């Protein structure tokens, strides 16, 4: 017993030192780059020091409070989130300085939200108990955006994906994705097929999914189609549907689901290609952007040029010209990183996000037979993974571009908030007893 206690204490001590060491390294990296930005662009506003100080405060309060409340948490999740979001702050200072103050406020709000999720007594039980309320709330939010949605730029032709409250704009699809993952996790956890599937299979009988499984899948498909048709938000629709297919697959091990989900995506994609100009544009410039490099394909071609200009070590912060890419600060931050930090920066981002996702899936494995927790951790990790893959592959022209944010790095308050709530939930799950 005493050795077990000693091992436990040593474990929590290493969590603390590992987390702080990583945060220290990240802080140094950010400091060097803020300095570089200041030197390369002396005209930049003087408030950007304030952004670094806010980041420092968030990181130190965050690690202190987590240490007090969740001593046995995963040591990598919080530093990676702070690393990418701090880098995001620098990128916005660099690429779109007018938005940087706003993003800094959102960072403080997001870290606070993460700490609330990580320290309140029973967030996981609430998520499970009030799942129908969550689902209803999510659908109401979606309906609200369809009828009352606006765009922060005030444009009437741009996608109306935001809900505005005075000066604050919020994108409900970001909240919706967490709500729906939590709903689906608790719904599938109660389906008996989950436990049956987790037994070693002696019988080779084919498992056809029951209506209990097919029902929510069709519901999700419907929701995604609504998002696609009414809002022209291709990225969110694909993200939702892909994550839910994967989650149902994890819960039931049914290859049929994976296969039919793939068919449904192809079908929906084909119909969307026929029906919507925006989808046709994305697919056309994905197949061959070069004939239209200065018109319809301008954005993606500039992104590819940014990757080429970056080379192995990049141009250095403030010394490249990523601002040639339209809306570089939200969808195309990855190209900006490629241009100014080069292959090294790109690899670091991919490694950081990959590590985050792997740790999330490991947390799912630790939950053993508690089906809801397994599925919740899996779903949240898959959200981050799918979203990152969609946009990173999109700006590299590996797949048609879908306009989703790169988690933690892109400009976007609601996206940052949702991503930090995901960190909070995963930290919470990683620190559960009896692992």
């Amino acid at each position: 017993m005493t050795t077990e206690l000693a091992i436990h204490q040593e474990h929590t001590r290493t969590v603390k030192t590992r987390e702080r060491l990583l945060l220290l390294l990240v802080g140094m990296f950010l400091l060097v780059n803020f300095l570089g930005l200041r030197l390369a662009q002396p005209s930049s506003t003087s408030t950007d020091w304030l952004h670094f100080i806010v980041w420092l405060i968030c990181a130190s309060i965050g690690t202190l409070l987590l240490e007090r409340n969740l001593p046995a948490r995963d040591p990598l999740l919080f530093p990676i989130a702070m690393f990418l979001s701090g880098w995001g702050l620098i990128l916005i200072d660099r690429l779109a300085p007018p938005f940087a103050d706003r993003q800094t406020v959102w960072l403080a709000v997001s870290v606070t939200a993460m700490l609330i999720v990580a320290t309140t007594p029973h967030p996981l039980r609430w998520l499970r108990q009030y799942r129908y309320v969550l689902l209803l709330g999510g659908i109401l939010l979606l309906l609200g955006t369809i009828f009352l949605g606006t765009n922060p730029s005030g444009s009437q032709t741009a996608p109306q994906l935001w809900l505005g409250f005075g000066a604050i704009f919020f994108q409900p699809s970001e909240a919706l994705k967490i709500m729906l993952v939590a709903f689906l996790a608790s719904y599938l956890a109660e389906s008996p097929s989950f436990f049956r599937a987790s037994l070693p299979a002696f019988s080779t009988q084919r498992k056809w999914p029951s209506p209990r499984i097919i029902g929510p899948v069709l519901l999700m498909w419907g929701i995604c189609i609504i998002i696609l048709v009414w809002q022209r938000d291709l990225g969110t629709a694909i993200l939702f549907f892909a994550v839910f297919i994967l989650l149902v697959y994890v819960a039931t091990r049914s290859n049929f689901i994976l296969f039919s989900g793939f068919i449904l995506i192809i079908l929906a994609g084909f119909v969307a290609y026929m029906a919507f100009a925006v989808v046709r544009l994305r697919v056309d410039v994905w197949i061959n952007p070069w004939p239209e490099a200065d018109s319809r394909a301008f954005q993606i071609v500039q992104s590819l040029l940014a990757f080429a200009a970056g080379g192995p070590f990049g141009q250095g912060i403030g010394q490249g010209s990523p601002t040639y890419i339209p809306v570089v600060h939200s969808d195309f931050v990855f190209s900006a990183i490629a241009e100014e930090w080069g292959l090294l920066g790109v690899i670091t981002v991919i490694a950081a996000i990959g590590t985050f996702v792997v740790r999330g899936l490991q947390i799912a494995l630790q939950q053993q037979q508690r089906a809801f927790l397994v599925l919740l951790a899996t779903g949240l990790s898959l959200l981050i993974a799918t979203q990152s893959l969609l946009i990173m592959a999109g700006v590299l022209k590996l797949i048609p571009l879908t306009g989703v944010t790169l988690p933690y790095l892109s400009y976007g308050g609601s996206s940052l908030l949702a991503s930090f709530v995901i960190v909070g939930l995963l930290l919470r799950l990683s620190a559960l007893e009896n692992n």
Partner: protein
Amino acid sequence: MSNELILLLLRIVSGLLLLTILFAIFRILWRDFQHTTRAMDRQKRSYGSLIVMQEIDGAYLLTGEVYPLLPITSLGRSPTNTIPINDTFASSEHALITLRERQWWLEDRNSRNGTLLNGRQVTQPVVITHDDIIGIGHISLRINLSD
């Protein structure tokens, strides 16, 4: 020092810091991986093995099959047993080997043709040791304890 030189230095430091962060992340992952594999090795300690033999013309010949000996090892014709025995003389649930209070016990589970230990019929649970030979149908299993 000129501005360009400082910027170059900052770029180098920034790149080195990125490498350090990558290294730190991978070191943590590697340490955790080692920790997990060591913990799994400890759990997966081996107890011993059962060596399958066949008696032909009064001599035991190895068939080449070796099964791990587990704290609960069931033997029989049904494929759900820890050691499935493909022999028409074996019952579907034929015999059971268990580890109780640091002793290995063999019991017959009311099989039709009975279980032999070193050539003698097993009627009630008996303690078995290293090099004992269990007979089920035409098949014999020699017990090999590791410690």
